[in-house]
């Protein structure tokens, strides 16, 4: 008599950020994936080729000859109503720059994973937020993640946000190069059927090309109509704020994991607030705990999205906290101006009439190693801009 082998469906795995991204994409069932390899994103492309090749999901994988073509192919497919995905990093993202704007102005719900990485000259493959932040005005919704689980969950959320009829904008899910792309962490998988039936609707691009009523997308446009198109894109981005929160609420209800535009950590009674994005801001949780252990009332605000900027949530969190000092950590820099996240936050504080002591620390750029102990020292710094380690 033969022993029967019953395969139990796995609910939890131990994978890299890249594999988590690829697994999430397959569950969302795009019909077209076009991507080009670049370190440290390559594993996403490799895993997707493998999953699609194995027949886990019926999808066309277009192995393009450049990143510019990767996004162009997604634009072509999305213009015909297809759900699309691409992934890139650093130089690849900037090589796409022309088409990033194109995709957003054309209102195409493309989802992309971007492995944050520094830019040359002087080849550097390590984490830096300047690649995606340099494209923050393109009209893409931009998420920043801090764990392998969050990469997976955020990509699942991204498709729903992008395809919302009131939004219809492309979404970029950022994960720190190597710190997330190449790190293995435990990953709890979602129930695919539940996701497909309860969370994500069929895609419907209302302006998709079709044979029944032929129309032209992207013709010449007059200044007054171009102005209207840009204003309409702004409205889409504004609607995204609520759509994101609603998607995060539904995600919590169905899958039990909680996300907000601003993730608050022990901030309610904090006397000093750390503020950042990505893995660095996750590490800051340890710094907060250690400071609290030593009697310093520290707290943390981690931004999960920079576009649309969570104005209300950030002002609300800062107002609720008694902290007079804000330590904003930027893994980016705008030469001649300052840390980009810091400028973004200061603008909102000014609009809300809130005055705080702002310490802007430029840290972790080009993959610089920043520890929780480093962050404990950062709170001692005085108002102004500081380059950590110089």
């Amino acid at each position, binding site marked *: 008599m033969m022993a029967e082998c019953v395969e139990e469906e796995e609910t939890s795995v131990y994978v890299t950020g890249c594999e988590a991204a690829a697994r999430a994409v397959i569950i969302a069932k795009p019909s077209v994936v076009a991507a080009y390899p670049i370190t440290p994103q390559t594993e996403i492309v490799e895993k997707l080729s493998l999953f699609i090749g194995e027949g886990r999901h019926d999808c066309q994988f277009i192995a393009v000859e450049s990143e510019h*073509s990767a996004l*162009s192919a997604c634009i072509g497919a*999305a213009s*015909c109503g297809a759900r699309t995905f691409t992934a890139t990093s650093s130089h690849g993202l900037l090589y796409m720059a022309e088409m990033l704007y194109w995709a957003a102005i054309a209102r195409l719900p493309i989802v992309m994973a971007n492995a944050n990485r520094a830019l040359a000259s002087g080849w550097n493959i390590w984490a830096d937020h300047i690649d995606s932040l340099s494209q923050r005005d393109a009209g893409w919704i931009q998420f920043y993640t801090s764990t392998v689980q969050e990469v997976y969950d955020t990509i699942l959320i991204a498709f729903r946000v992008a395809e919302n009829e009131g939004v219809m904008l492309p979404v970029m899910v950022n994960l720190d190069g190597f710190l997330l792309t190449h790190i293995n962490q435990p990953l709890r998988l979602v129930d695919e059927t539940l996701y497909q039936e309860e969370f994500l609707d069929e895609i419907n691009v209302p302006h998709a*090309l079709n044979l029944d009523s032929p129309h032209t*997308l992207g*013709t*010449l446009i007059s200044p007054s*109509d171009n102005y209207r198109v840009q204003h309409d894109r702004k409205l889409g981005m504004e609607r995204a704020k609520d759509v994101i929160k609603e998607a995060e609420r539904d995600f919590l209800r169905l899958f039990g994991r909680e996300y907000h535009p601003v993730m608050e950590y022990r901030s309610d009674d904090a006397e000093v607030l750390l503020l950042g994005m990505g893995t660095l801001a996750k590490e800051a949780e340890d710094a907060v705990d250690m400071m609290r252990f030593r009697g310093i009332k520290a707290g943390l605000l981690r931004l999960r999205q920079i576009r649309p900027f969570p104005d209300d949530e950030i002002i609300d969190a800062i107002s609720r906290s008694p902290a007079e000092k804000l330590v904003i950590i930027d893994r980016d820099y705008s030469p001649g101006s300052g840390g980009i996240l810091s400028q973004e936050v200061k603008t909102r504080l000014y609009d809300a009439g809130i005055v705080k002591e702002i310490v802007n620390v430029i840290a972790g750029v080009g993959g610089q190693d920043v520890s929780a102990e480093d962050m404990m020292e950062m709170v001692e710094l005085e108002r102004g801009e500081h380059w950590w380690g110089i």
Partner: protein
Amino acid sequence: MVLVFVMSADKFKDRHGFWTNTIAREEYILKGNSSCPGCTAMIALRHIFKAAGPDTFVLVGACCAVVCEGVYPNTCMALPTLDTAFACTAAMASGVRAAVTDRGINVIAIAGDGGTVDIGIQALSGAIERNTDFLYVCYDNEAYGNTGMQRSGSTPFGASTTTTPFGKKEDKKDIAAIVGAHNIPYMATACPSYPMDLERKVKRALSIEGPKFLHVLTPCPPGWRISADKGVEVGRLAVRSCSFFLYEMENRELFMSKPSIDAMKNPIPLRDYLSVQGRFSRMSEEDMKLAQEKVNANIAYYREVCGI
């Protein structure tokens, strides 16, 4: 401008059995578009879409044809049309084909010579290598027409443009040979001065699965400095002088088309083609002789290849 509709000389069934003496009545490029008077690129596109029929998705790269569509909310295109950025026409076509998988629906990408032989050549090469099932049409007016006639890689030797005011010193890039080197299932050259030949080639191309390439010479009245009623005539002179050859290539086998076979037997002097165009008016006698020698070498090459 008079359109050449039916030429009795072309009334024959081709070697694949396509009737070539009929032209569809349906129009897919509507009246009132904003092309220059006498634009032969629009004549070419008109015939290409007539041959393709209504089940066609069109992509138009950044080129004159985008401007000719008109200004939003108007369009002269009666087919679903996606305008693309300059460098990515073929890549976007790969995306459209991935979304539109029905073989009964054509995907046709249109781009000018600049968008094909220069800035778009990488995307084109990639799409052909990936076996994208589409027809790529390069209409060649031998310069960047949209921006006011600057030299492109496809501008011929001796032609003056706004960036080669004293004549181009280099030769025209042989895009057909470059595409042919990809071992493409079907490619052809055409000219709207021979509309039956053009339509037949489009129909043949669309009947084949995989990437197809059509290189169409489209004389540009303002750019070539000829009068608006001379575009069709000058296209014929290009073929009769063997400055431009009409041929098809299937699986690396070359078939010369009838107008070029006739021309190769008794070519008119190149001077007869060049001297009617203002853009060659500064060409020296020496250069004219050199250009004729280059044409003679091409004729000798194709005679050998085709056994004519």
